[in-house]
């Protein structure tokens, strides 16, 4: 296996492992599966936002139904995640609309719908809290301190302040949440559409009071997740398992779109306040940021969302004196949770619109302002992390400005209905702080007669996990891509590789696989797989995460190396304003991303294009209409995401500045593309003279927004 074979798969657009099955319809999603004697499940949910359950009346004949409530939980009635605060089924207290109270199962789905309409629940209602500013319960508070803020403000010539608001956003994966729970071997097996098999595994062990080996979780082909299938599957799997446990029969629980939108998690809305000290020439001297996120009724992953949010809150800019205070609080709305970007899109929206406003205030060019303050290698972030050689903030900024002809267009568009805006951003790959060390993820590689089989809990949810992992393994072993198989993400077969989240699947799990493959290659010592297996019987190599030396993190003080690596991005977005309707139509996006190494360029580009389109919706269209704590527009007919016609042409440029500890130099790519477009679009709207500081920037908001003063 000589040097000429190096990189035969990596960097090439090989066919997706599951591509053929998906395009021919052979791929099986959870709702395609059926089991002998299977029942269908249905969840009865609260119709109030806060109060106590007084009585439950079942107005239907119970024959043929399995009915379960909190008393039927064999173990602990919680959805085990960070905190054990969320009941799997409400006991007395109800804390949000659509909180699960009762479960029904029947052979006939239709009978469930009828029965549901005949369930009446009496409540003693309480006054709900919807405004996070008025919340009396804080899930998590984080403070980041760097330097001496007072000194920073003393050095400033000007202080620029601003408040920015971001709304809820629905993940809107194409396949709604769904699972099937099957009682078998004295335990339970759950098949489902999910991102994190071992999260569900743990939640079921706690809920059912079972040992490790009695719970098995198998991911079925999954139609998208975007974070919406990170923690929620633990809830729906729990419900199906309770019904299966009680009925001793397989139970399928698949949400329709309305239930999925009404009941499951969304992106945290937030209010972010900036106060920035800056000198006349545009040097940032002090940054003070206050972040408030609305967590909804239960904690879910809110502390970690807040953590990523505050760490990214300065944007990719250096400043010696920084104070960031973040809080995520409880309200009586359905819990918010993981969504691509995980706090960073919210805080970087504020940072980049604020940066534009600083330039407006100083009367200087906003590209110059960014160039002056952008992180360079060797600079330190707000947590004191010293940035490495793969710091590409300036490079992506300059590339995007020149590729888009930003300056000439900005001049040419002045005074017209066309606008142009820019945003510079970064995104940490992998779990925050000591998260990866704590996770201690494992991956295995098994030698087969024809090549190797990957055994990881990382899930393919449309983003290309199987393909990209197989490319890394093929080239490391020096075998053809087609000789690498990928086992199903089944907890009975694969080790715990950690969750498929946080832009970690390539950089972190891919790296562990690369180490497995290196060891396997050494072990083979030039022998063929067949010879080795004939001689030794089998070969499975398992490796555990091992971080780069010298990474340090203190969770108490929030000091240290927040992430192993950062990806870097810059978006330039051109828009057109309709003079009659105030509608903003993005016409062109120039997206430049530095991701270390594109293992599969087409898939990486797909992540950037998809994340950009999702962010166009976040910026302009997607508005969750909360009325009395419930989503009033929980239908695809009135929760509108961009169609192809609403999605502009996206010119993607991928730059590669290798990260020495990533497989083939790769860093994360999944989340970063959703950080930039919203502020770039709002900055483009600002270039039209409209002072918008919240999203979605609907035409109604633009109509009400003040004009920027003519003096700028």
């Amino acid at each position, binding site marked *: 296996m000589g040097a000429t074979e190096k990189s035969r798969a990596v960097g090439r657009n090989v066919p997706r492992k599951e591509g053929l099955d998906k395009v021919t319809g052979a791929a099986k999603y959870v709702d395609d599966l059926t089991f002998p004697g299977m029942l269908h499940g249905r969840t009865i949910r609260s119709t109030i936002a806060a109060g106590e359950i007084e009585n439950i009346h079942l107005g239907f004949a119970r024959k043929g139904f399995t009915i379960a409530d909190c008393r039927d939980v064999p173990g602990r009635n919680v959805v085990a995640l960070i905190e054990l605060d969320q009941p799997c089924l409400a006991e007395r207290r109800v804390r949000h609309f659509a909180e699960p109270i009762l479960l029904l199962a029947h052979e*006939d789905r*239709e*009978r469930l*719908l*009828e029965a*549901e*309409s005949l369930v009446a629940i009496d409540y003693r209602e309480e006054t709900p809290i919807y405004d996070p500013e008025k919340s009396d319960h804080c899930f998590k508070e984080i403070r980041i301190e760097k330097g001496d803020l007072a000194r920073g403000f003393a050095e400033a010539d000007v202080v620029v302040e601003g408040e920015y608001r971001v709304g809820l956003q629905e993940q809107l994966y194409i396949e709604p949440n769904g699972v099937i729970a099957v009682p078998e071997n004295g335990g339970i097996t759950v098949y489902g559409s999910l991102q994190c098999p071992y999260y569900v595994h743990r939640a079921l062990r706690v809920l059912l009071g079972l040992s490790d080996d009695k719970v098995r979780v198998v991911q079925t082909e999954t139609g998208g997740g975007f974070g919406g299938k990170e923690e929620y599957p633990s809830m729906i799997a729990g419900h199906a398992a309770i019904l299966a446990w009680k009925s001793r029969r397989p139970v399928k629980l698949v949400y*329709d*779109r*309305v*239930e999925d939108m009404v009941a499951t998690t969304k992106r945290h809305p937030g209010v972010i306040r900036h106060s920035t000290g800056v000198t006349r020439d545009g040097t940032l001297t002090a940054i003070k940021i206050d972040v408030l996120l609305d967590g909804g009724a239960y904690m879910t992953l809110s502390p970690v969302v807040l953590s990523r949010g505050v760490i990214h809150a300065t944007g990719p800019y250096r400043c010696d004196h920084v104070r960031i205070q973040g809080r995520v609080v409880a309200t009586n709305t359905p819990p918010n949770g993981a969504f691509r970007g995980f706090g960073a899109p919210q805080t970087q929206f504020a940072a980049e619109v604020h940066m534009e406003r600083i330039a407006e205030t100083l009367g200087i060019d906003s590209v110059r302002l960014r160039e002056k303050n952008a992180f360079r290698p060797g600079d330190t972030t707000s947590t004191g992390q010293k940035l490495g050689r793969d710091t590409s903030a300036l490079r992506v900024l300059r590339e995007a400005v020149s590729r888009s002809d930003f300056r000439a267009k900005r001049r040419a568009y002045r005074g017209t209905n066309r606008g142009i805006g820019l945003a510079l951003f970064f995104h940490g790959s992998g779990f925050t702080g000591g998260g990866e060390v704590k996770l201690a993820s494992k991956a295995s590689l098994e030698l087969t007669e024809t090549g190797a089989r990957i055994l990881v809990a990382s899930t393919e949810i449309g983003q290309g996990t199987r393909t990209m992992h197989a490319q890394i393994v093929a080239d490391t072993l020096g075998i053809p891509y087609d000789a690498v198989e990928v086992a199903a993400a089944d907890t009975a077969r694969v080790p715990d590789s950690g969750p498929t989240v946080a832009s970690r699947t390539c950089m972190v799990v891919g790296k562990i696989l690369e180490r497995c493959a290196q060891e396997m290659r050494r072990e083979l010592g030039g022998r063929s797989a067949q010879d080795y297996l004939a001689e030794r019987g089998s070969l499975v190599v398992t490796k555990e995460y091992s971080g780069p030396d010298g990474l340090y993190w203190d969770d108490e003080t929030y000091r240290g190396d927040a992430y192993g690596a950062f990806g870097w991005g810059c978006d330039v977005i051109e828009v057109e304003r309709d*003079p*009659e*309707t*105030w*509608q903003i*139509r993005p016409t062109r996006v120039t997206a430049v991303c530095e991701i270390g190494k594109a293992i599969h360029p087409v898939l990486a580009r797909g992540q950037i294009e998809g994340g950009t389109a999702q962010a166009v919706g976040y910026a302009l*269209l997607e508005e969750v*209409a909360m009325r009395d704590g419930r989503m*009033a*527009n*929980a*239908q695809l*007919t*009135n929760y*509108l995401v*961009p*169609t192809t*016609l*609403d999605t502009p042409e996206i010119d993607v440029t991928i730059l590669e500045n290798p990260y020495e500890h990533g497989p083939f130099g790769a860093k994360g790519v999944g989340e970063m593309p959703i950080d930039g477009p919203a502020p770039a679009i709002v900055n483009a709207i600002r270039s039209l003279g409209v002072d918008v500081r919240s999203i979605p920037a*609907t*035409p*109604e908001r633009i*109509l*009400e927004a003040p004009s920027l003063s003519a003096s700028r």
Partner: protein
Amino acid sequence: MRTAVSRLELLQPRSVREALRMLRDEGPLVPLAGCTDVYVGLNFGTLSAKRFIDLWPLDEMRAIRSTGGVLSIGALATYTELIRSPLVARRLPILAAAAREIGGVQIQNRGTLGGNVANGSPAGDSLPVLAVAEAMLVLSSAAETRRVPFNSFFSGYRKSVLRLDEIIAAIEVPRVDGRQWFRKVGTRAAQAISKVVLAGIRSDRPRIALGSVAPTVIRLPKTEGALASGAPIEEARRVLEGEIRPIDDLRSTAEYRRRVSANLLERFWRDTAG
């Protein structure tokens, strides 16, 4: 909560005559054809009706033809058929323009003009076109066929003069003189319900109709009068703003609708000048 479909009843007549008999003898029944509105209600659990009659196979109600200067459109003509019809393109191009903006291809293949009228949403995109075209609705029952002017059909929010034993059989459009204009303003570029929709005809007798700004689609007689009398456009805008009654809802705000309606009026007037 989703409706249990198995508990619904569907009658399937094989002719218009049989359908009318069923409506008379076995009603009340909700007529349906493309089901594009019915399914939204079913999925959201907002459909109260339990008994339906399927008109979709009744091809006698599908033809688009011209008779004696009248463009007659069968109630079951789909948006796709309207878009493809040379007659519609010649006589009432703004109807094809409206049809093109309704839903996506699947909806256009199933949704019908009669259904858009019967559903009676103030946001129905074809309705302002029928209002300015001063269409007549042909209403059939087992007992009689009667003609009702489109502009007297609706009596309130989703209410009309259609009797329980009647169906909309056809829509008749008289000859339309003058320049036609149509504009839909939705939340996104396609597949969106209107926030404001305006149809206009520029002639000696200017005609304007707006959707989504009142409980029904409305004509604007005062605004039309102002334009007919040669009032400046600023004056006509003021009259219009006093003539409509938009509300805040999930899709938009009253203020936005008022401002955009006035802007569309001005755009219509400028585009059709000279």
